[in-house]
């Protein structure tokens, strides 16, 4: 896997010993929205779907592909609950990243590679979200006057989350 590029086989072997990969059949729920969270997942094979429940309706809002990490706030927040439900869309194999793994494997170069990957992923997500804020400002206009047409981002998001278009 590209995020382990340059990591020795010994380090990967130690990682798989500390956290053996786990497989999930299609349709299996890995996390439930609202559940207490204590681990993150690194997807090694397959594909996961992310859903959120709003006003009693489940809406699929994205997918997790090979190499992506999901649920990392479980490890880096004092307490927290899952903000989304994650299901296996295909037979999927994940590495379960727990606090114990990070503590026991803190000198393992494969764990360091996962953390560096997480750093760049989060930086990219924050930057993209900031870009969306810019788009929204542009869409809405700085004077905050109501727009004459309803084809904007704000309206789309509002409609999606209210269940209408």
């Amino acid at each position, binding site marked *: 896997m590209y995020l382990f590029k340059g990591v020795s086989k010994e380090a990967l072997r130690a990682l798989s010993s500390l956290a053996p990969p786990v497989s999930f059949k299609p349709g299996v729920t890995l996390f439930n929205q609202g559940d207490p969270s204590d681990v993150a997942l690194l997807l090694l094979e397959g594909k996961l779907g992310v859903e959120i429940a709003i006003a009693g309706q489940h809406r699929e809002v994205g997918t997790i592909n090979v190499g992506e990490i999901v649920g990392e706030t479980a490890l880096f*927040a004092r307490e927290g609950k899952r903000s989304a439900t994650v299901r296996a869309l295909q037979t999927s194999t994940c590495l379960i990243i727990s606090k114990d793994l990070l503590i026991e494997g803190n000198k393992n170069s494969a764990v360091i590679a996962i953390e560096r990957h997480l750093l760049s992923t989060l930086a990219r997500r924050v930057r*993209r979200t900031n870009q969306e804020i810019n788009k929204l400002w542009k869409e809405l206009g700085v004077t905050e006057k109501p727009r004459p047409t309803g084809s904007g981002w704000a309206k789309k998001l509002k409609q999606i989350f209210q269940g209408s278009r």
Partner: protein
Amino acid sequence: MSQISTTDSDELAKRIVTQHYFPGASSVAIERVLSKGVLRSVPNGEEICSEGDPGNEFFFLLRGHISVMRRDITGTNRVLSNTTSPAVFGHMAVIDGSKRSATCVANGPVEVVVLQRSQLDRMITEDSVAGIALRRLLIASLCDQLSSANGFVRKIVFDHGNSTAESQQPTKPPARPVSRRGAEPTNTTEDLQTVSAMLGGWANDLADLEKVQGEVTLVMDEDMKRTNQAKKKR
């Protein structure tokens, strides 16, 4: 410029560990990170870092308050947040090598501990106590930033949406869930792009990852494969 005093370093490190949660968090480890930086005093109103500039350094806020601002489409700076000590800021551009996404201005007299990009590049690859602590502190800080940014998007969307869309839509159409699996044709990509703003850019990351997957070779350790196959058989 000078080094942070032992007393200040001890106090700041303890407050950072209280503020940010991460596995193996220890104020002693954070003190080691702080000891590599230099202290800089910033007068009220002065920019500490500027939007669009290259990110060559990042900061720990030791004393005082800063305003984080971004330019809107007219070029006017709009305040995104006001931050107080303890805080780490200016690290995003240093991590991914992009330009500064925001301007940080001293809101009153401020003292910051400054670390250079070269120091971060070196430390985040290390298995030293300081390296581990810095890597995890930055991850925790980015998680908080992402959460705040998502909250900001929600506020803009719902505050503004309530004042515009409702007035234009006296009758609400029946509910229709977004689905990628159903037979119903939808403009799913567009939906995902919009929703990704609220969920940290998953949809955009997906596009990136699909590109990357074509270019990389999956190097999975043989032991991991065998373990996996054995589990499947069981």
